[in-house]
Structures are given as structure tokens and as C-alpha cells.
């Protein structure tokens, strides 16, 4: 496979310089997260962070593993349901509820991953889409998910039994910590030996196999990591909005995360964050126009694929000759 990602790394640039650019970008991002609540609604920023983490998790799989999943909503949505149920019905504290959601996504990723990695490329996309649709119908019919209503009025609870998360500042800090933690984890994975093997598999799977790597195990591991982090995003989102609903597990959500990542830049570190911010902002402002949001998203898809394959961050990185 030629690799679906326009790679933006420049081997000629010294590694220290690369890392410095990324450090600066990271600090800018932290600063924006710190200042933004003064300008925009905190709840909006929390939504952006949840989706940014979701997109980053998705990007780990496509951007660095070369696997296009069209079913990532199954992790976001099911983790949301499990954590909402854990917080509401079992009365668990938020950190445990989020842990439950993440573990559930992990389990789903393990089972679906075993099936999906048996095929590659387009088939992988179709299989993940079909499996996600199966999870959707399960969530629609299962007794604890509340069908069309979803799980509403999920209590945010007290973090570690101490800090009341109905306080918006506390909630904001928790979401920011989860987002930045997840982001750094992905950053670490990408730059680890594991991440390099993953990129090698993306570039040339046969070669990686001949070098003695069990490529299926690497792909499965990447898939599970991606699913678990996506689940973390979904579980957090359920607590922020105090709601777990079918929207998060529907195939349109799987499409949205593809769009966010594509728009921001496939295979870039910061691209998914920017892509998520742009798409969420757009949805926010165009919400009253109904179906036009879908149409505009479709148009962005078409433009990105035909003329803008590097994405926003990819283009910036290309212009600066740096990897972001």
C-alpha cells in the first residue's frame, strides 16, 4: 500500500529542531486552553477538547498505522453509555466511571480489531463500519441505554469523592487534564519504537514482516490503543454533557471524525485538534440551518480529497518545512 497519508516529516531537518517546533505548538495549545474560557463558553471548549482527543485517537490509527477505520463512533458512543450508566445506575465516582467506559471501549476494540485486521485497505474500512453499525443496533435495543432517549441527567459526581464536578471550573480542569494527558500519550506512542514500527508497516507491510515483525500484533495493538483513547474521549464527553445518546454511536459520527482528521491533516500531531476545533465551531454556528451542516461537511470532504490532502496543519508544516 502506498500509504494514504501525505507524510510531512522531513528527515533532513535536525531532530532537535523538529521537537522544538512541536514543543512551541504544544505550549500555544496549552495557553489557548487556559485563556479560552474567558472568551468562549467553557462547555464549548470542553466539547472541542473531547472531540479533539477523539480525532487524535483516530489519527493514531490512520495517520501512523495507515488503517482507515470507518467505525470509530462505536468506541466513542459505547464508552459514553458505559460511563453514564456507571455514574448514574451504579453511583460510581467520575474517575471510575470514565475508567469503566474506557475499559469497555478497550474490550470492544479487542474483539472488533481481531476481525477487522484480517483485511486491509478498503475492506478494513467497510468491516469497521459494519461492526460499528452492529454496536449501534445493540445500543438501540439494549435495556440499559434508554433507546432513543439515551441516558439523560447523568450525575457528574465528585472526583475521588472530594471535588464536586458540577462546578464548571473543576470540570473544565479535569477535561483539560484528560485531553492533554491523552494527547501526550499519543505523542509518546508515535515517537516510541512501537510507533516507528507502526509507520514502517504503513509504508511497507511486506518489508516489516520480512524484518521479523509480527505486523498483525502491531496493528491490533494500535487499533486497541486508538479505540481505548477514543473511548476515554467518549466517556469524558458523557460526563461533561451529562448525556449518552445514539448520536455518538451513529455512523455519521464515524464520518465526522474522519472529516476532522482529514481537514486538520492526516498523520500530523496537531492536525486532528485543529480539525476538531474547526468542525465543532462550524456546527455550533450553523446549527440552525439543519441539513446544511451535512452538505457543508460533504463539500469540505470533497475539497479536502481533491485539492487539500495535506490538511490545515499539513499545509502549514509543509510551508515551514517542519513536522507538526
Amino acid at each position, binding site marked *: *500500500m*502506498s*500509504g*494514504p497519508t501525505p507524510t510531512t516529516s522531513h528527515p533532513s531537518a535536525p531532530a532537535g529542531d523538529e521537537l522544538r517546533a512541536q514543543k512551541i505548538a504544544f505550549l500555544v495549545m496549552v495557553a489557548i486552553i487556559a485563556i479560552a474560557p474567558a472568551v468562549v463558553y467553557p462547555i464549548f471548549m470542553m466539547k472541542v477538547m473531547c472531540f479533539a482527543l477523539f480525532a487524535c485517537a483516530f489519527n493514531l490509527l490512520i495517520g501512523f498505522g495507515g488503517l*482507515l477505520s*470507518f467505525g470509530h463512533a462505536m468506541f466513542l458512543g459505547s464508552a459514553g453509555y458505559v460511563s453514564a450508566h456507571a455514574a448514574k445506575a451504579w453511583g460510581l465516582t467520575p474517575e471510575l466511571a470514565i475508567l469503566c467506559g474506557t475499559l469497555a471501549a478497550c474490550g470492544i476494540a479487542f474483539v472488533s480489531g481481531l*476481525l477487522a485486521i*484480517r*483485511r486491509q*485497505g*478498503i*475492506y478494513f*474500512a*467497510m*468491516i469497521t*463500519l*459494519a*461492526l460499528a*453499525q*452492529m454496536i449501534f*443496533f*445493540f445500543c*438501540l*435495543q439494549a435495556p440499559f441505554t434508554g433507546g432513543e432517549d439515551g441516558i439523560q441527567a447523568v450525575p457528574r459526581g465528585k472526583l475521588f469523592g472530594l471535588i464536586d464536578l458540577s462546578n464548571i471550573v473543576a470540570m473544565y480542569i479535569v477535561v483539560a487534564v484528560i485531553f492533554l494527558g491523552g494527547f501526550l500519550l499519543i505523542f509518546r506512542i508515535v515517537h516510541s519504537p512501537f510507533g516507528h514500527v507502526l509507520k514502517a508497516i504503513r509504508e511497507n507491510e511486506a518489508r516489516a514482516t520480512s524484518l521479523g515483525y509480527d505486523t498483525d500484533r502491531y496493528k491490533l495493538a494500535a487499533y486497541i490503543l486508538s479505540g481505548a483513547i477514543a473511548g476515554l474521549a467518549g466517556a469524558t464527553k458523557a460526563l461533561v454533557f451529562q448525556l449518552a445518546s445514539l448520536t455518538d454511536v451513529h*455512523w455519521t459520527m464515524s*464520518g465526522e471524525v*474522519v472529516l476532522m482528521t*482529514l481537514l486538520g491533516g492526516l498523520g500530523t500531531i496537531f492536525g486532528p485538534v485543529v480539525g476538531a476545533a474547526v468542525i465543532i465551531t462550524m456546527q455550533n454556528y450553523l446549527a440552525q440551518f*439543519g*441539513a*446544511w*451542516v*451535512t*452538505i457543508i*461537511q*460533504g*463539500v*469540505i*470532504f*470533497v475539497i*479536502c*480529497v*481533491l485539492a487539500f*490532502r495535506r490538511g490545515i496543519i499539513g499545509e502549514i508544516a509543509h510551508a515551514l518545512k517542519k513536522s507538526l
Partner: protein
Amino acid sequence: MEIFGVPSQALFGQLLIGLINGSFYALLSLGLAVIFGLLNIINFTHGAQYMLGAFCAYLLLNNLGIGYWWSLALAPIIVGITGVIIERTMLSKLYKLDHLYGLLLTFGLALIIQGLFRNEFGSSGLPYRIPQELQGAQNLGFMFLPNYRAWVIVVSLVVCLATWYVIERTKLGAYLRAATENPQLVQAFGINVPRMITLTYGFGVALAAFAGVMAAPIYQVNPLMGADLIIVVFAVVVIGGMGSIMGAIVTGFGLGIIEGLTKVFYPEASNTVIFVIMAIVLMFKPAGLFGTQK
């Protein structure tokens, strides 16, 4: 009369619905397989194009007074032409890239088309009457068979088998199969491969539109009628494997029937049974029942 503890009326009724759904699965997965064979693209717009076929028939009837029979011929041609335009202006730019970009582009197009129609017509279904000649039903002794449903099953079988015949048994089909194997070589023999690719895409799209016209009187004409259907058809394609035309037809009908039977014996699973079968097939035969691993 009861069979396995189920009233035979219900059993045959669901079997019929299964056969009808199977007809559409077969027609749609056939179109996908034909397109994939030559373009190596999974046409995500297929569901939207199926919907376009139904809307085309609806608009022809309500604006120009053109009835079902003409629509059956006109709608596939009209939608097929839009397919040709899409292939020429957009898809053809992507052949040198990874095939996933084709999937993403067609997904975006599906969003646009479905969004536009939802804006214009809302998301509630619009009725389309069964043509006069096909109204009524036959009493088969053990059940009533509505004429239109029998017509759908027969016609889709005929169309599927005709497509199979053209591709597997005629000279045109031989060119097509040769171009699937090795487009450069076929082009070197003086065959205009790019035009063949364009027409193939147009034909695949026309098949989807044809299915849409056939579906209009059974399901309501709805902007989202193809959106969920296409995911099931993807699963059908994964189960059958993309290698063979006959495989697409057989799995399409077969899975429709299995889905119908599930509705009788274990209704809770009727939505998911095809996906479960897909998972099982992937475990034992990753290339699909009729496929060959490329």
C-alpha cells in the same frame, strides 16, 4: 398450519420480505462489485444514487406525468449520466492515489446529495403508487403474493443474471475482465480503457438508480432511504467477497432470506444478523465466501 411452531402465514410473509430485501442487496452489491472491479473504488455514494433513482421516478411522475414504466428506463439513464460526470470530474483525479481517497470522496458526495434532498423534501417519506398493471395479488394457496413484489424479485433476478452474462460470457465482458486484470496491457491493444472505466462507473450507478425506482413503490421515497442500506450492502459485499459477480448475486439473495427468517425466529437480532454473519465469515474465510485474497 404451523412450521417449527411458527404460523406458516408469518413464515412465508417474512420469507417474501427477505427475498425482496435480498433483491435490493443483490442489485446494489452487484453494482458495487462491478465498480470495484475496474475502478478499485468502493462507491460510498451508491446508497445516495439508489435514493436518486427513486426520487427521479417520483419527480418524473409528479412534475412531468411520466409513469413508472418510462421511469424504469429514464431514471437509471439520468442518474447514470450524473455518475459519468462525477467520474470524469472527480474520481478520475484520484486513480493514482491510495484507494481510500476514493472512499472518502464518495462519502463526501453522499453527504452532499442526501443533505440537499433532505433540505428540499424533508425526511419523511413520499408515497409512490404501484403501477396499475401490477396492482393486486395472487392467491398461491398457502399465501397471498402481491403482484408487484413478485415482479421485483423476478426483474432483479433477470437483471442480475443478464449482468452476469454480459460480464462473464460476452466479448465486451471479456474486455472488462481483462482491464480489471491489467489495464495497461488492454490499453496497449487499442482499447480505450479510460472511457471503459467511465462507462462502467455510469453502469454501476445506473444499476443503483434502477434498484431505487423498483424500491419506490415498496418503501417510501425518502432522502435517507439509502443511507443505512448501504452499510448493510457493504457487509454483504464483505461476506460474498468482491471477486465474483455470481457471488454478489447469491450472497445478496441468500442474506435477504436469512434476515427474513431471523425476523420470524428471533426478531431482536434481525437488524444485526448480517453483521454477525460477516464476523463469522471473516473468522473462517477472510477473503469472503466467493472472493480471492488480493
